[in-house]
């Protein structure tokens, strides 16, 4: 059972091919790391999977729904979070979660319970009514993540979720990701931190719009004959 099944997905902007016939499959409950240098085509590929962009050609089955014909069902069944693009600063934590929860059609009563349950889990239920603007970045990211999985999606897309925070907060954030994955939610994550890539079940590396490498972190290290994913990446980019 695959959560994501991408087939020959291609996106052209004029003459420029941003994503060039990529193919991959992601299993349910997997933490799939999507790596690549800036401009390699990661974001474009992710935008297509989230239904923000239409592909030039190729197809993908996301959460069991066809990208071309069932984009509305896909939207209902995915969550999205990004470090840069996340929450409304002038709304409180609770209001932010309430807004997105309502948009996803969670009944009012249940929504309230879910919000408090997830805030309790994050140990921040005491500041539910603080404005997002006033809380530290690390907390914002956790709130954003909690918001993205509030409607219990099958897949959650994380676009560089941890950029700009210190290693301890990052480690805590990854604990959260592990917990979420263990409940059966598929995690699709892009990152620039190679130590984070080591935490993934499988990773892929994109370059010039093509998917060049895919496999478990150990497998890739083995193939390239190096000790860490960092070296894999550097070696790969230099080639």
């Amino acid at each position, binding site marked *: 059972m695959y959560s994501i099944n991408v087939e020959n997905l291609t996106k052209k902007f004029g003459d420029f091919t941003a994503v060039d016939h990529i193919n991959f499959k992601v299993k349910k409950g997997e933490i799939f790391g999507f790596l690549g240098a800036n401009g390699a085509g990661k974001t474009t590929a992710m935008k297509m999977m989230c239904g923000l962009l239409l592909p030039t050609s190729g197809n993908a089955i996301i959460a069991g729904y066809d990208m071309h014909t069932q984009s509305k069902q896909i939207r209902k069944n995915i969550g999205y979070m990004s470090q840069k693009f*996340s*929450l409304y600063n002038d709304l409180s934590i609770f209001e932010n979660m309430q807004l997105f929860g309502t*948009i996803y059609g969670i009944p009012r009563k249940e929504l309230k319970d879910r919000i408090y349950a997830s805030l309790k889990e994050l140990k921040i239920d005491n500041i539910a009514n603080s404005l997002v603007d006033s809380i530290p970045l690390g907390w914002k990211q956790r709130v954003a993540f909690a918001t993205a999985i509030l409607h219990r999606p099958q897949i959650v897309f994380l676009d560089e979720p941890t950029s700009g925070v210190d290693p301890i907060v990052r480690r805590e954030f990854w604990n959260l990701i592990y917990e979420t994955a263990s409940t059966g939610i598929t995690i699709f994550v892009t990152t620039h931190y190679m130590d984070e890539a080591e935490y993934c079940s499988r990773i892929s590396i994109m370059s010039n719009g093509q998917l060049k490498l895919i496999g478990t972190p150990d497998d890739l290290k083995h193939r390239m004959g190096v000790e860490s994913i960092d070296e894999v990446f550097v070696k790969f980019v230099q080639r």
Partner: protein
Amino acid sequence: MILKKEFIHILRDKITLLLVLAMPIALVLLLGFTISTEIRNARISVYDLSKDSYSKELVEKIIASGYFQVVSFPETESEIDRDFKNKNVKMAIIIPSNFEQLLEKEKFVTLQIISDVSDLNVASILNNYLRSVISDFEMDYNQSSTGALPFEITTKMQYNPESSSVYMFVPGIITLIMIIITALMSSITISREMETGTMRMLLITPVKKIYVVVGKVIPYMMLSFISTIFIILISVFVFKMPIEGNIGLLLFVCIIFMLASASFGLMISALVKSQLEAMMVTMMGLFLPTVLLSGFLFPLDNMPFVFQLLADVFPAKWFVILLKDVMIKGSGFREIWLYILILFVMAIVLITISLMQIDKRRKK
């Protein structure tokens, strides 16, 4: 839900709220009391060469009119010149010597009027006032003397009998305020979400794009509607402006215009990339044409044909016509449906273009 969220945004942003609600009121009051085409107590000097009873009577009449205030009686011609420069005199009247004699015997008098035309408007208004005072004087004189036919000048002022300037600019202010709040705010609010990326969050959710847009724009439409009501109340109760037509129709016309200007804002936000850009484009592309081409400050009939055509494209011109018709002339729906239709069609076209534009972004 997005609607509720947008209301919270607005309420949290106290400065904007204050600006949006207080600015129109301040603007109307300010303009109402300052921009006035009426001039009272204009400073003039009278160079009276004859100083007889008739000339004194004329001067008294001029003063009694209330429009003028005689600040000096120069004794020489060079003093007149000095008055213009030193005493800020707007006009000088030179009454020839032998005024009485000329009136009695020759039946022909030439008064010389010297005007300061550095402000053309003031000069021409004063000129008109003076002319009417003089013709009054002429009438009195004719009646009291030999019974020669008194000539008569009657001007009927229609729709704005007091020539009150408030009538002229209230429709303009309403138009401006609505453009600022609805078009500017809705283009800014949408481009702000594009900039911060929260728009992407919203577009990923299953919510339809049109709901996102409508939810964002409606609160601003309501705000500008409230402002409009304030402006109308002020103009009616403070400046005694009449509403000849149906109030319901007036408000309906306002809503249609809000729709058109919100769609303008929407289209702008669909074309630009940042808040700043949205603000600039709205200011240059909508605000200026509204001021210059809506016909409330500068008459459209005098403009070159190209500009008249250009004015047709912007909703403001039609709205100003509608406001004047409904408020001052008291027109009903039957007389103005065409203008309403024009605004409505504009709104539909603009909304369609912007939704297509947003869609194009996805396909691009």
